């Protein structure tokens, strides 16, 4: 992993105040109609060559944000800038050359691979769509890709169901890197895998980054995995980024009370250091995103909350060279 940071490198992708709203509830009865702000004014930058980790609990909007960045969802507000160009409202046709530069890896490889296609076809598909070359060039490229992700030419004619979960994720990764993208957005790519296999796939992501100079946005709920892969992290809560910073700084000295609680809740595989009840317990559950709390969205669960937190929503504010936090009373 190289040590590129938010300030020194070239920005590859930038999100400016991106929001995504979904309409839920009744389509017929207007009174029952509701709007959920799944992503609510998120701004962030990804620098070429780095891994930005996006972490948060279920429903925090991290997956929706990832899908907005590749335009699998159309954003409701804000802009997405890729290599200095606003791609937010590009037509499908104009977007096509950009799509090959931004690829996605999904959580469940079983669901994202066509069960009726052989591995050869799965990996060749993007190459065919983007007119990579002749048949024999594509064949050679597919074999090469399989080798890169730790599979072999013997696997070409098999179907996805003949593989284990870890191998299926390798196929998904081979497809994602087929067109030599600049940016790979991985949405929970290891969370469906067994622990022993998870480490292999995490290592594969890191190896590929070194070999191919990839930039990653790595979305996960597992804090230990994020800490392992990311140079920088963004912590999300109820649709917004509440803290960003270099990985080590955020994990060693969290600035937002939510980040602190989240890290303290991770069970430690070491009985000498296990919390055994000494962790910071949050009150209640994540609130309903259709009716978020006033002021700071985290205040009803925050043990440091004061009167201001109920009324005024804190903006994401720079508190250090690579550090931003959205809290009236940050911990560092």
């Amino acid at each position, binding site marked *: *992993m190289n040590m590129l940071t938010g300030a020194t490198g070239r920005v590859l992708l930038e999100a400016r105040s991106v929001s995504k709203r979904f309409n839920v509830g009744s389509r017929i009865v207007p009174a029952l109609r509701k709007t959920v702000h799944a992503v609510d004014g998120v701004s962030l930058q990804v620098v070429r060559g780095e891994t930005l980790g996006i972490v948060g*609990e*279920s429903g925090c909007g991290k997956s929706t944000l990832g899908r907005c960045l590749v335009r699998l969802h159309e954003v409701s507000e804000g802009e997405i800038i890729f290599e200095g160009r606003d791609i937010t409202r590009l037509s499908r046709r104009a977007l096509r050359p950009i799509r090959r530069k931004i690829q996605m890896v999904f959580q469940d490889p079983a669901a994202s691979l066509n069960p009726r296609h052989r591995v050869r076809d799965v990996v060749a598909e993007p190459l065919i769509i983007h007119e990579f070359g002749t048949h024999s060039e594509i064949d050679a490229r597919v074999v090469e890709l399989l080798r890169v992700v*730790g*599979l072999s030419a013997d696997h070409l004619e098999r179907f996805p169901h003949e593989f*284990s*979960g*870890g*191998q299926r994720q*390798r196929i998904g990764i081979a497809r994602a890197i087929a067109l030599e993208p600049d940016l790979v957005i991985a949405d929970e790519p290891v969370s469906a895998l*067994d*622990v*022993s*296999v*998870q*480490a*292999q796939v*995490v*290592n*594969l992501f*890191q190896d590929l980054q070194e070999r191919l100079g990839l930039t990653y946005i790595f979305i996960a*709920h597992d*804090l*230990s*995995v994020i*800490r*392992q892969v990311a140079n920088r992290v963004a912590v999300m809560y109820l649709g917004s980024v509440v803290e960003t910073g270099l*990985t*080590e700084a955020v*994990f*060693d000295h969290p600035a937002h009370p939510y980040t602190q*609680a*989240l*890290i*303290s*809740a*991770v*069970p*430690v*595989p*070491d*009985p*000498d250091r*296990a*919390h*055994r*009840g000494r*962790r910071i*317990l*949050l009150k*209640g*559950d*994540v609130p309903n995103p259709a009716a978020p709390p006033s002021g700071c969205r985290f205040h009803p669960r925050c043990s440091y909350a004061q009167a201001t937190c109920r009324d005024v929503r804190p903006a994401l504010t720079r508190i250090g060279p690579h550090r931003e936090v959205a809290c009236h009373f940050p911990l560092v």
Partner: protein
Amino acid sequence: MTEATATDPAVPLLAVDNLRVSFRTARGTVRAVDGVSFRLGHREILGIVGESGSGKSVSLMAMMGLINDPNAVIEGSIKFQGRELIGLGAREMRRLRGGRIAMIFQDPMTALTPVYTVGRQIVEQLRLHTDLSTGAARNRAVELLEAVGIPGPKDVIDRYPHQLSGGMRQRVVIAMALSCNPALMLADEPTTALDVTVQAAILDLVRKLRKDFGSSVILVTHNMGVVAEIADKVAVMYAGRIVEHADTPTMFRTPWHPYTWGLLDSIPPISGARPRRLSSIQGAPPSLQRLPPGCSFAPRCQYRSRRCAVKPPMIGEPDHRVACVLEPGERREIVRKPAQQNDEIPS
């Protein structure tokens, strides 16, 4: 096959001996559980750790008498409070289940029906296993919901499961499991579907329940961290067998089995130095239909030798047992060296 705590003078709460569960399938017999033995004492929390296909869940289902597949063959012995459960009639098993033995599943919706309020479901359980009147059962249900930390239990009791969050549903299931003061609680990945902050709260709850209700708990999980936080003893399962069994501090301080080493090493640390690469176990867990002869872990083990061609017996000390042929001297030698980075060879 005598197990670790056989020295305990009192009758253990649960004694499992040489449990085997196999399924007859069109492609031959699959042995999901292959000779599992252990003892569980009173007020003890045992963590069973394993990956998919390790047989951890099937073992729990067998203890619960929930395997009713006509093609399943269950052999061995499961003695609960001295009473043999294998071969027990459906009617008597039903009396135990939900009464003296309760179960918590990974997905709380498995245990709750969406069409009744949670109160009605708890009351039904209480009425079935106790002689409480409906009114008294309802009051007891409110108490139970309060005991598992549900805010506003009088209000929640009339809600339907879909109106509650995942963490709240799991609390309702735990309240239901507790309703008849079970001596034994079996929990199958109870926190896997939950967020980490909720998981922490549920683990605290399980600890508190052992204290307040005096239940013993068997908790099945793939998460070594969860086990370290909560269990008194740990059994590591691989391909249907227990490969290592020890009390929790021993298991984490001086693990003996190469699989346990691999599991512990593949967890990215949450503090301290970040390894440049994670050490990982090569390959994937084996298919139960094509188990290698001898030690099932051998094909993935970097310390395998010719000795591994024979199924290793459980050896070791009374409170730390392992199914591996490595001699204590060899183990110490390996542990002293830094973990070798195995370049990944997918199976």
